[in-house]
């Protein structure tokens, strides 16, 4: 119990004193996960909408696979990305291992199935209502895709938040492909792991509290943005 209090105190102190190292690794955490999230959404949303409005042979199989991959184990993703980007691996010449780019790629792989599945589920519901209308006014497939994505914004934001949550708290993959290098690839989760291994639980916990508050504030900001644009987001 005492350690939790100590951790809270230290977290407050770290934040209040604008500890420069803390700020750098927090920003790096945000940079990695938000970039991965952006890449994921650019792939996931169109893919999800496409899976809703079209019918083709392996559609159900793809949906089932994506659903299963929601629980993709990060440490396995990390290992695969490591093998691909290792100097002895097929993509080794790019020299991306132990850079934030490798971490972003790993996280994007982890997040994409999750966002696609959530987005697909919500758009599927909407499609049932919209289908006949859209077909009757004779819009193209592309227009249907656009309408679906626009009108299910709120669910898509939820999908993004789920993806963000999975990414920002992830440690298994980025530890392997990022290497937890000081001043280069260290982020909040890997720093927590490091301080735990030094037995400095108070500092580890303090970083943990910072991570949780970061996740909460991102979620609150999103909600607040949704509220202020009352007309736009339904």
């Amino acid at each position, binding site marked *: 119990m005492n350690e939790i209090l100590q951790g809270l105190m230290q977290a407050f102190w770290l934040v209040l004193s604008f500890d420069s190292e803390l700020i750098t690794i927090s920003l790096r955490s945000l940079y990695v996960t938000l*970039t991965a999230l*952006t*890449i994921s959404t*650019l*792939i996931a949303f*169109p893919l999800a909408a496409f899976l809703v409005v079209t019918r083709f042979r392996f559609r159900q199989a793809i949906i089932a696979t994506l659903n299963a991959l929601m629980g993709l184990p990060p440490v396995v993703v990390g290992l695969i990305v490591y093998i691909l980007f*290792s*100097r*002895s*691996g097929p993509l*080794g010449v*790019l*020299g*991306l*291992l*132990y*850079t*934030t*780019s490798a971490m*972003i790629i790993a996280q994007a792989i982890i997040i994409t199935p999750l966002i696609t599945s959530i987005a697909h589920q919500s758009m599927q519901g909407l499609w049932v209502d919209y289908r006949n209308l859209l077909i009757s006014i004779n819009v193209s497939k592309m227009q249907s895709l656009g309408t679906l994505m626009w009108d299910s914004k709120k669910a898509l934001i939820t999908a993004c938040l789920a993806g963000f949550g999975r990414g920002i708290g992830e440690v298994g993959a980025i530890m392997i492909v990022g*290497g*937890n*290098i*000081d*001043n*280069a690839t260290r982020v909040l989760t890997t720093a927590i792991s*490091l301080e*735990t*291994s*030094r*037995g*400095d*639980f108070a500092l580890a916990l303090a970083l943990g509290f910072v991570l949780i508050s970061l996740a909460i504030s991102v979620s609150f900001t999103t909600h607040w943005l949704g509220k202020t644009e009352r007309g736009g987001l339904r």
Partner: protein
Amino acid sequence: MMRALLICFMLILLQVTSALAEKVRLAVTSSFHNSGLSDHLIPHLETDLEIDIQLIVVGTGQAIKLGENGDVDAILVHSKPDEEEIVKTGFAKHRREIMFNEYVILGPANDPAQIKFSDNLLEAFRNLSKANTEFVSRGDLSGTHKKEIEIWKKINFNPKKIGTKYISVGSTMGKAINIAVAFDAYILSDKATWLNHKNKGNLEIQFEGDLLLHNQYSFLPINKNKHSHVESKLVKKIEEWLVSEKAKKLINSYIIEDKQVFTFNAK
């Protein structure tokens, strides 16, 4: 999709341009880092040579693997048989001894296995094999784990016979100590990591000071013939710095709790 590709491309470009700064990647054993010596040494090394050193902290087994794959420019590890093997296979150019410290056996304060007054290390391990007490093993093929296996072999005992009380954890030194603290168990650790460790619980050093507990750290540059991208010139500078008078002073002056923990012995 196009935008995603564009972003990927720009990020790769960003990495390529930042790669122009002189940087060297070293895979180092977790005890070098958990002991705090790296924080004491590396900043001096970086300022003196004006290079950016990126440390990847892993167990010796993994460090050697990273070296073989060419993912790092040099390794600093502590397991002589493995080091000689990687030099033999040609992935490392040579092996340069830098410094040593010692292993100790940590155990609960009341010492249920009675190892404190053992005549030598082998007797201490024999007592551990007979006493029905928990023993935490690193279990990750790190230098420390290899040392432990070596000692069990010397007394002709398979530690698996201890049964459920032989806890193989597969973690770095510090995390393994945390687990030993939680179980109130015995564990083989290097002394520096232990002294620098904050979560000591009820554990104490119960046995130390046997020649077999000597723990030698060596520096091995990765061979440019095997991996052409290796920064061998910079690595050579680092090696020269590590065996210099300045490094000697810094290593020998690293003190935790009034004790010198590493001894420089490069030739």
